[in-house]
């Protein structure tokens, strides 16, 4: 995944860790949050995509949608051993998100696990619109 590491900052939390991400709009914010989480978890050499995954998620509000969205990507890694390598959000509203993900099977020769994220938490979750950009804060359980 191509992304500038400056797109997010890692928040210091005594027991766990978190991210603060900015995006030009909601779609951009959600894409960047997912990329940030993947960058914290795993580093990978360039690999060809092998699987396309369609996600369709419904939640009651944007913060809930953010936790669910990142949680789904985390599950793909932790539960299905799939490393998400491409993210496209097809549509997003305050209660719905549809996305197309590209992924490759986890391969210890190609991927290095940097950090185990146990879960994406609701703790202090924030998804807010600022003057001319969107900002999210997410805390992970490590």
């Amino acid at each position: 995944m191509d992304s500038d590491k400056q797109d997010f900052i890692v928040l210091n939390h005594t027991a766990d860790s978190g991210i603060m991400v900015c995006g030009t709009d909601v779609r951009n914010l959600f894409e960047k949050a997912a990329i940030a989480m993947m960058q914290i978890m795993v580093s990978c050499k360039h690999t060809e995509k092998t699987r396309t995954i369609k996600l369709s998620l419904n939640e009651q509000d944007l913060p809930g949608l953010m936790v669910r969205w990142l949680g789904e990507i985390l599950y793909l890694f932790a539960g299905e051993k799939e490393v998400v390598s491409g993210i496209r959000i097809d549509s997003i509203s305050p209660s719905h998100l549809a996305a197309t993900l590209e992924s490759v099977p986890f391969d210890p020769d190609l991927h290095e696990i940097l950090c185990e994220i146990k879960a994406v938490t609701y703790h202090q979750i924030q998804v807010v619109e600022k003057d001319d950009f969107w900002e999210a804060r997410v805390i992970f359980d490590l």
Partner: protein
Amino acid sequence: MSIQLEKLDNYRWRIPKTGQMRVPGLIFSSPELIKMLHKDQSLTQVANVATLPGIVKQSLAMPDIHWGYGFPIGGVAAFDLNEGIISPGGVGYDINCGCRLMTTRLSASEIGPLIKDLVSAMFKNIPSGVGSTGRIHLSKSDEANVAVQGSAWAVKNGFGVSEDLERTEDYGTMAEADPSVLSERAIKRGKDQLGTLGSGNHFLEIQVVDQVYDPEKAGVFNIREGQITVFIHSGSRGFGYQICDDFLKEISKKVIKEKFKLPDRQLACARLKSNLGKRYFAAMACAANYAWANRQILMHWAKETLLESLSISPGELGMKLLYDVCHNIAKKELHTVEGEQIVLCVHRKGATRSLPPGHHLLPEIYRKVGQPVLIPGDMGTYSYILAGTEGAMTQSFGSSCHGAGRLLSRSQATKKAQGRSIRSELEAKGIFVQSRGKKTLKEEMSDAYKDVSQVVEAVHGSGLACKVARLRPLGVIKG
């Protein structure tokens, strides 16, 4: 939010009941430790827990309290079964994360220079690291049996002896477990992670008994100075994380519908008497049982490794389970409140049960001296064995601390360790370490934790448990 603290004495600080709080908060600490708490948001979290419906007496924090998510780590809260709630965030993702300590007949002098080889052998035989999978691959029906039977399943399948069960909290089996409430995702993640240590702060240590404080209790615990012990810290792995995640999602939606006013969404909870509350309890019990089976199996492999590496007989090794305790759990327990005996749901998130001498839940062997309370420190200092006290029953719903408690975040620790070789620093102290993760040693170095000895002194001083012995690490394996 600024939190007002009232000092009651040198071990107790109160957060007065204000705003939405239903009960006051009470922090067990010491003058040295309490100063550190203003740096994070853990005190606010104690106050937040005090707002939850059906909370009884006080929202409590043990001396190792630090900033968690929802509940603080080191938080204890008891809820009325009729009016109260159960909160997955009050248990944590690693359901029944806990500790197990084994004693041996070996002395440190017999291990001597063999420690390096022993650590390598343990590292080879005990699966560890992020997402590690083990040598056991469970069928769906076996996984259901693990979820219902816990340690008993492991013993039945050749991992240990029946005597181990009475030396495990709740005899290694939590009632009310029901695998039919589990998601396919949880079942999938539990299939191949049994018998794995995990990563982060989980560890296996070969230790030596460094100091005995209470010879009488130590005698009953079969502990003597110079003796080799083995300490395991692990939990329910991805199986537990998934169960917590599944139910938080569901409970969070329900909370929004019911318009519960929560100060933090991670405190999402369900009434204990509701169908959702009961289903979460049944699922949590499955994870608790999985964790007990996991530690039982890890112990068995540790024993096999020692026998093989040292070429000695089981009789010569004499390895026995001292006790196994959980420190992330919600349990229905009998407590005395205002003179009346009542069953409460006690949440311990980073807190260890501490039952006093004579308690009916203790096995005969420990009934005279109280429950062994196992407190792991960081890999460069000490761990402790304490014994449960009546003071814990009267002050903290039978609870004590669970460890040193983090002081630095992982990134702060990594930064502080820059340019240092933590491995060499530990070796200079006679501690040999092997770890799988590149950053593990830096993130887990001693500087990242509070001084466990200060925490234990605060526990001892406040009467939540009493010191029995101190253990010093010789060899450590980490994920």
